[in-house]
């Protein structure tokens, strides 16, 4: 079993929700109406904060994703 690791630079970034929205929306072909932008950005910031908590968790490096879920 590998030693626990801290995920590297992944956690340390400053998150720009507006920029993220513009780039990802273009990549996945998701038009976002002007009226919806603020709400989407707030939710992106919340998801990013949650993802950061996950990045900071000590999970051994060789842990596989639980893509096939068996309780």
């Amino acid at each position, binding site marked *: 079993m590998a030693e626990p690791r801290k995920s590297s630079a992944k956690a340390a970034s400053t998150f720009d929700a507006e920029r993220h929205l513009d780039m990802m929306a273009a990549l996945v072909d*998701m038009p976002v109406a002007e009226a919806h932008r603020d709400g989407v950005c707030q939710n992106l910031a919340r998801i990013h904060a949650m*993802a950061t908590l996950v990045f900071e968790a000590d999970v051994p490096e060789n842990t596989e994703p639980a893509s096939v879920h068996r309780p």
Partner: protein
Amino acid sequence: MTDIHSIAASVRSGRRSARSVAEETLARVEAGNRALNAFTHVFHERALADADAVDRSIAEGRNPGPLAGVPFGVKNLFDVAGEVTLAGSIINRSNRPAARDATAVARLRAAGAILVGALNMNEFAYGYTTENSHYGPTRNAHDPTRSAGGSSGGSATAVAAGLIPLALGSDTNGSIRVPAALCGIAGLKPTFGRVSRAGVYPFVASLDHVGVFARSMAEVALVYDLLQGADPSDPACRQGVVEPVVARIDQGTDGLRVAVADGYFRETVSDEALEAVDAAAGALGIRERVALPNPAAARAAAFVITATESGSLHHARLRTQADQYDPLVRDRLIAGALVPAHWYLEAQRFRRWFVDELNRLFDQVDVVLAPATPVPAPLLGQQEMTVAGTTLPTRTGLGLFVQPLTLNGMPIAVVPWHPPGRLPVGVQIMAAPWREDLVLRVAQALEERGFGAGVATAEQQEVRHA
């Protein structure tokens, strides 16, 4: 109205007709639903036709089933043959009617139960408050100014108000456990894969569970046993294992290692919710506490997985019909559709670690208790709540203690704690995957020691309004 066992016994013995039960139930639903908005559709003709079929079975000497004549409702994401499955949305109104009942609905109807209606929910099951911009909020039967919890709030309110004795709901991040607690009734989220989800509108494929609301654990156990069984139509349930629990829930807690969840679960929590857990520990005579593995990150991983999978599920319609989504849900789904794969896969890696760690923990203890929600029911429309000095958004904060615990698919029951003159809260009772028997034994023991549901009568509702 009375309990599931009594209704079935009276119908099976011929003391009452299923039709009279159905007629009485439909009248009660019509009268009681106006103030609570639990039902989005009432199936008058279907219910009376099904009740007549049960009565004919009895007249012809056939077995009408263990739930003969028992009225029930389903969260409106369950397929009902001939009806359009709304899942709390207006977009789905243009879908074709369901060709057949969801497996869970079919199993209850085959057991003689009478489907009387479909129940309100957060749009596409995304939320903890059953505030729905299309169909209005469902109100808490104990105080109609307050939330019923969600997303299966219609199911919980209908049972708590005594409109029906039984309802089905779904639980992806706590959508059975939160409303059961805030409405003060019994709820069960079985092990992931135990009960078929075929014909249930999806939210997050790897987290979606089907479960039961009733007013006692004995009733929950009876229905849960009837819902079990393999179903090739649900990939998670294909190899379903049938392990009936009804005969086992009265075995008591002697010999069981029960502990209270420590740390995270005792920090951002109200006095009322903590009192419930400590009362449960006191009732069972337990002092042990255990720390669950990184619950904050478990909640975060579930949050990321939920956002990503649901955003992907709705991607095509969000591109062209975003304006038809509930504004309370739309922006969350769009944001979820923009999550990078790396965030999602890191959450799934964490999940694997969490599952393994929890399995190790269940080598040491059999059952763990934790609060279901940080607070009793918040007011409808309440944007924030302050809990133990911490301010949380109400719509996500209600999931603080349920969301971390869906990740490993373990069975969890909620028993209500409802002191007179107060709003109810709930205690989560969890065990290793596939050990519903242990969960229900402890839940039953607590019901025998002062936990459990009361009925919010019309008189009580008026007193609260006065």
